């Protein structure tokens, strides 16, 4: 029973993290139809900004809640700023280009941003464990877990609900959905398609940075952490179906479960768990579980 509850808690907390990382990626893909490799860089920028914000607020003597709020605010601001710059200066000029070129462009952006974080914050690992340590531990099923990790599950659910609510119950969200379906008709109906695209990209970048800032207290923030994140986030998004928010939730749940099960029962294949799930799902449903059907044009 101990193992079972440990698997469940690990799965849910890992799934929560996966969803946080992947939601921005899938949102941007849904609206802009491009896979943003630079999302991994937004994540690491967010993590670094988070580390610094937490460090600064700790030295100011602020409480844990205030530390986290500062980190989130700083990270989302940084993410929005970089996202706005990237979209306005680079991606805007690439809409309608062949897919490989756009992919190369986001890859190049990733390289530049990754290097910039190294230049600004140096090559060594940084730590910001204060909020996670000060929140203490909680016992579930006879095992101790950091309260911070459990709280992340709630944060992730809040983000999921907020994104879903914005997309489905607000005016702006409906405009975004309309652009996803057909940007030309939306433009004819008087929606500023360009603004919607810019806005979505900025929000997606901010979500990536927030995910980084929330992860920062759990890990050693070091250069090169963005690459693995982008591959894992892609796996999550692909399992659920590219561009679908419920899909990202489903993908995160499946991959989180697979990772937790293998970590506890078959530790030697844990590294491959993510890829095995992705390969398995893609073999059955090449576009992911919740992807809408696409018309084949001859």
């Amino acid at each position: 029973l101990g193992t079972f509850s440990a698997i469940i808690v690990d799965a849910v907390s890992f799934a929560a993290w996966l969803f946080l990382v992947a939601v921005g990626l899938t949102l941007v893909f849904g609206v802009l139809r491009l896979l943003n490799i630079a999302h991994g860089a937004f994540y690491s920028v967010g993590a670094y900004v988070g580390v610094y914000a937490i460090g600064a607020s700790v030295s100011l003597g602020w409480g844990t809640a205030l530390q986290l709020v500062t980190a989130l605010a700083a990270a989302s601001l940084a993410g929005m700023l970089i996202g706005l710059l990237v979209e306005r200066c680079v991606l805007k000029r690439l809409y309608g280009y062949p897919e490989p070129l756009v992919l190369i462009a986001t890859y190049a952006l990733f390289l530049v941003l990754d290097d910039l974080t190294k230049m600004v914050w140096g090559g060594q690992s940084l730590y910001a464990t204060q909020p996670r340590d000060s929140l203490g531990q909680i016992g579930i099923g006879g095992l101790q877990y950091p309260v911070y990790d459990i709280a992340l599950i709630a944060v992730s659910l809040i983000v999921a609900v907020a994104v879903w609510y914005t997309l489905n119950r607000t005016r702006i969200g409906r405009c975004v959905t309309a652009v996803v379906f057909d940007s030309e008709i939306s433009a004819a109906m008087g929606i500023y398609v360009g603004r919607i695209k810019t806005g979505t990209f900025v929000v997606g970048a901010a979500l990536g940075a927030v995910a980084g800032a929330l992860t920062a207290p759990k890990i050693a923030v070091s250069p090169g952490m963005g690459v693995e994140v982008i591959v894992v986030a892609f796996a999550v998004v692909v399992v659920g179906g590219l561009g679908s928010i419920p899909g990202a939730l489903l993908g995160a749940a499946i991959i989180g479960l697979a990772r937790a099960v293998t970590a506890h029962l078959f530790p030697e294949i844990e590294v491959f768990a993510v890829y095995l799930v992705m390969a398995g799902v893609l073999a059955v449903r090449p576009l992911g579980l919740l992807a809408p059907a696409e018309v084949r044009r001859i």
Partner: protein
Amino acid sequence: MNARRIDWTIVALIIIALLATMTASVVPNWIRYLGQVAASTALASVGVMVLLRAGLLSFGQGLFYFVGGYAVALMNRYAGVTDAFAVVLVAAFGAGLVAAVLGICLAGYRGIFFSMLTLAVSMVMFGIATKLRLFGGSDGLNIGLMSYFGYRPRGPQAQWAGFVFSIWIWTAFAIATHIFLRSRFGRLVQAVADNEIRVEYLGYSVRKVVWAAYLAAGVLAGAGGALAGLSARHVDAQFAYWTTAGDFIFVVLLSGQASVISPAIGAFVLEMLRSYASALFPDQWQSVFGGMMLAIVLFLPAGLDRLIILAWRMIRKVHARSANSLPQGTLS
């Protein structure tokens, strides 16, 4: 084609190889080394170009580079094979085998799915390679001196021989790729990028074409990795890292996809850049590299060879005009 015409690509390749061979003993050491490294990068990049012609961007060619390099190192270390031709052929064959198997799974994917799956496969390989004792962990393996059909050069001679060997291996593989791309089946690679469904209606299997392109790219990257191992006389797990595949993408992006020679231009520029940039800005290499990539995508998406083709057309146009206007000129 009703008459057998001279294929200028093949002629140009052979001329380049002959020129390089003749000047090899005159040029300084570092140019020879640069040429050797550029030849290995160029070979792998030709593979990336073949895939890109099919509309597929592979972030995982580092995997085959790794397989090629380690095939050489392992054969040299454990089997004591020192013949350069043998190790390169086995390396290319080994990489081809891996590509053939992986290709069966990957041939069904397009676009970002293909790109990210190839990236995932090479990352898994990198993870395994850094842990396995057989592969020397993250330190890698050293490679001994090579012989060429019994000829065992030592000292400066060995470097000369290595350069000439690399150049001719590059030429041979480039010609083979050119002949493949020129063949009817090879032309289908381009057609797949244009419209898959039409290719299917014409009675060809798109899956087979993509598989063949992936196989060719794997063999080329394997041969390139073998040459890279031979020129540095050392291989490490970095070969399978995603930045290696990024180098090849950069090369193809920079040089364009007009012919199998093009990647050689890009590879040479890349290696020059790398050696200068690492001296000028040692810590900002990645930004320089990414910044250049962005600049090319934004301002010259067709690549450098497009400029050469445009210049060539312009010269021919001017030439043709002056030839046509000659009679008028004589009249007046």
